[in-house]
């Protein structure tokens, strides 16, 4: 920090900063902790112990039930399939579109951009009925393919703008230098531009994955059979007619966090550079 300030002021400043950060982290993580806590609380203690930070005895029973006795593993697999395929598809399409928007001028470019932007402006609920009709006629209701198509369509606009901004951040000179050095345009793209855009693609991949992973509205509406449910819809099956099985529901939620965590752990290296790229001139 700034030299010349007294030692005491500096220490106080640090304490203040870390307190604020700690408070924020606690605020953000507390619901997760509560989920975890309930997931290991035996059914018998759930309502009898009052509010405690940790149950007097913990159990894996809920997890066992979820994994063995419910369809949850199936939902889980469905979610993985839908999210991964959507994320990969969107990233590929958005990268291509973003590159075109960033590098070329072509007729109708502004129109395309405006239409992309427009799709982001109205509430999703409005389009549900027509989409249901369309998907029904195409035979794509109650199918993972249908979900993938819808998710891909709805994520492309934002992802395209995201990718465009990453491409915009790469100086045109680099491509031109590569073309003078002996690359065709596609070689310049492959050898110079794409390696530099990987962080951006990582960020897009992560963003779309999360969006698809936690999507509920379309999944709820388009999917009816148990074999095609994603976990977000699956979670609702823990809400019975007469009672909510909180323990199992929370156990399922904790399990659902695992792939998201793994995914981000894997992407983290790219994400940090990706989201700050352009902030610092290198």
């Amino acid at each position, binding site marked *: 920090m700034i030299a010349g300030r007294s030692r005491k002021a500096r220490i106080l400043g640090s304490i203040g900063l870390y307190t604020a950060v700690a408070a924020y982290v606690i605020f953000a993580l507390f619901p997760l902790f509560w989920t975890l806590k309930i997931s290991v609380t035996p059914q018998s203690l759930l309502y009898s112990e009052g509010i405690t930070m940790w149950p007097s005895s913990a159990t894996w029973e809920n997890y066992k039930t979820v994994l063995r006795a419910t369809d949850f593993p199936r939902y889980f697999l469905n979610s993985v399939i839908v999210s991964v395929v959507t994320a990969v598809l969107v990233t590929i399409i958005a990268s291509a579109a973003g590159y075109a928007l960033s590098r070329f001028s072509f007729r109708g470019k502004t129109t395309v951009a405006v239409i992309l932007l427009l799709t982001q402006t109205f509430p999703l609920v409005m389009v549900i009925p027509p989409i249901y009709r369309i998907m029904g006629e195409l035979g794509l209701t109650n199918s993972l393919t249908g979900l993938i198509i819808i998710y891909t369509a709805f994520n492309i606009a934002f992802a395209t703008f995201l990718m465009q901004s990453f491409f915009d951040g790469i100086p045109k000179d*680099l491509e031109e*230098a590569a073309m003078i050095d002996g690359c065709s345009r596609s070689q310049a793209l492959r050898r110079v531009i794409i*390696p530099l855009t990987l962080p951006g693609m990582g960020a897009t991949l992560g963003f779309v994955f999360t969006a698809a992973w936690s999507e509920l509205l379309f999944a709820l509406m388009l999917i009816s059979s148990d074999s095609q449910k994603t976990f977000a819809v699956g979670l609702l099956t823990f809400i019975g007619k007469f009672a909510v099985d909180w323990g199992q529901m929370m156990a399922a939620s904790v399990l659902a966090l695992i792939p998201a965590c793994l995914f981000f752990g894997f992407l983290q290296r790219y994400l940090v550079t990706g989201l700050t790229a352009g902030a610092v001139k290198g």
Partner: protein
Amino acid sequence: MASVTITNVQKNYGAMNVLSAVDLSIADGEFVVLVGPSGCGKSTLLRMIAGLEEISAGEIRIGERVVNDVAPKDRDIAMVFQSYALYPHMDVASNMGFSLMLRKTAKELVFDRVGAAAKRLGLDVFLQRLPRQLSGGQRQRVAMGRAIVRDPQVFLFDEPLSNLDAKLRVHMRTEIKALHQQLKTTSVYVTHDQVEAMTMADRIVVMHDGVIQQVGTPLDLYDHPANLFVAGFIGSPGMNFLPAVVSRNNTEVEAQLSDGQTIAIDPRLLVEDGERVTIGIRPENIEVGSADTLKAKIQVIEPLGLSTQFYTTLADLQVCIYAMGRTDRKPGDTMNIGIKAGDVHVFNPATGQRIDPAA
């Protein structure tokens, strides 16, 4: 190596005309500098030679080959960008060897060529570093190195030194010149700095508003500027301009300033009695304290040690005088100055064109 021939080349962006009818031939091995104020189209012309910008009309040839429709990669040129445009994800060695690698040159040969170029530029210890781990001056050298390992037909430079500090710029200037004397590769160099142009060029091309104003050796341009623009652009401190009226009697021809003082001009010049002209005089061509009768009033004195710069008023206009040595004159003094007839450049004030003696 090859010559570059530019014939009647034009560039339009939509309705906007950026270059109009540019004609230029650059000889094999020549170092040509394109110079002009910002926005005059020099980068555009260079990028058209490189193939990065389409040619709206006309023809560009490298050697005997018309390259209008040849892709940049097939033109056998190398270019140094103002931003250096180093590949951030490749180390120095890969940056320099990239073009050779693309041409599927044998590994050992790439290694040798990169090594030799790095050595020449003092980069041998940096070969494994990434561009972001280098200083600005070192990056500039890598950009140069990337160009020379290619051994191309033509080098193109777009203001390669403008991101360096003043001292390093002067150093690299001489280094680039030395490099050219060794390699003798045809070079086209863009700058807006007339000192860079004067010091480096075999020939200078002065551009203004998309039109070539004059092409010539540095001293040609300095001694015989074709028009007011070139006269004012080349030289620092710049040429002094004064409006005057010609008075001719028998063999003597004089230019009369607005306050009635007169300056003798070359009698062979094609000017008539009573004609309005603009005369141009370089600061170092004004002799201080001569027996002449011209009087200038000193406003500001700038002692430079070796020399002295006077800012004076002559006929109510500011006139800069550059004199060797030191002075004990004071601002406010009036001093006698002398100007040789042969040192006075005369221009047509309407067209800006230089007026020459009758052949």
